[in-house]
């Protein structure tokens, strides 16, 4: 089962997916391009490139499942970080109440 749909139409908890900044950030100082995260992620979040310094990039950020951090578990050099979960939860709550009031 894959989840790569049109990000503009996708919502998460009633909020447009593209208003939620949840996806991994690669620390290129730490990343050794072992590609374990890319091999793992079933949602095509990553893309391999020809660029020697950035052989892997976050390509489809909105494909990333909000609150999923499973790829970081596969990362031996600990090069992947995600946003603060509490801040994202608060943002979602705020956007939801805006929607109700508006």
């Amino acid at each position: 089962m894959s989840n790569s749909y049109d990000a503009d139409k996708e919502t998460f908890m009633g909020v447009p997916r593209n208003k939620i900044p949840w996806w991994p950030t690669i620390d290129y100082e730490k990343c050794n391009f072992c590609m374990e995260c890319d091999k793992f992620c079933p949602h095509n979040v990553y893309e391999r490139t020809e660029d020697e310094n950035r052989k892997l990039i976050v390509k489809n950020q909105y494909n990333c499942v909000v609150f999923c951090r499973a790829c970081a578990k596969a990362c031996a050099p600990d090069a992947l970080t995600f946003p603060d979960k509490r801040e994202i939860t608060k943002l979602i709550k705020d956007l939801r109440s805006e929607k109700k009031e508006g």
Partner: protein
Amino acid sequence: MAEENICVLPCNGLDKSLGVIAREVALKLIEKAPEFNLICPVLLNSGDKTYEELLQKSKIIVINGCITRCSTKLIEQRGLKPFKQIMIPNLSKKYNVKPSKTLNLDDENVKLAVIIADDIIKNLENAEQIEDKTATRDFQEQEYFDITVDKYYFTVPKKGYFFNENDCWIKPQGKTALLGITDYLQNAASDILFVDFPDIGKDIGQFDDVGSFESSKTVLQLISPGSGRIIAVNKDLEPHPEYMNQDPYNKGWFVEIELDNFEEDRELLMNGPEYFEYMKNKAIEEKEHLDKLRSEKDV
């Protein structure tokens, strides 16, 4: 220890330093428990018959250095199932030990290998003591919504459960609650083979990662619908991970928590009818997406 045979199969370990740690853990295990049988992954993979009979009658502990899980695959290819799977990347994070940059292990890495080997032995001993004593929870009959999409059959309990959009459920019962995965997620995972629990006593927030489970296809996380403290884990899942597939809302429960503030958690959760609608749409959309891909291929 037990009269049963125990086999230890590490990965070959020459691809990355986490693999060398996997190999080191196996060596430390044999040092501490000489009755264990060490299996050489290269010899096993060569098609040689040396281990055939031994593996058939043993409990097999596989130790993987990375998510490719070569040693697990070596066992599964033979139609066998590992008794326990050790994932070195998870443990290196748990104990906060960085793998060395080269294939030569540093002192910290060797220490980590000793800790992991000790943990494995301790767990085996504990498992013997608590066997058959795990509290069984009574689950009353309940009513379900259900739908078949493509070849998948999905159910959702009508009452008593709340859900997040990560396809995990919480069933509050007074001050405590059980947590688990939905029928949708178990279908997506297919046959679940391993579970990885959090420590008892750990505090978790809503949408935190509570633990992971693994199928032959993928590794998935249980993302918590609620906040609180872990007070129990479903030990029955270790010998019977298939409960998560067969009965995800009852026997397949994952952990139990003492609730922190369910009123607040509830704001971002769906009830049974809401989740059923959400899940139904997701399953149908996925089917349409797959149909589209298939038809594009045919053109």
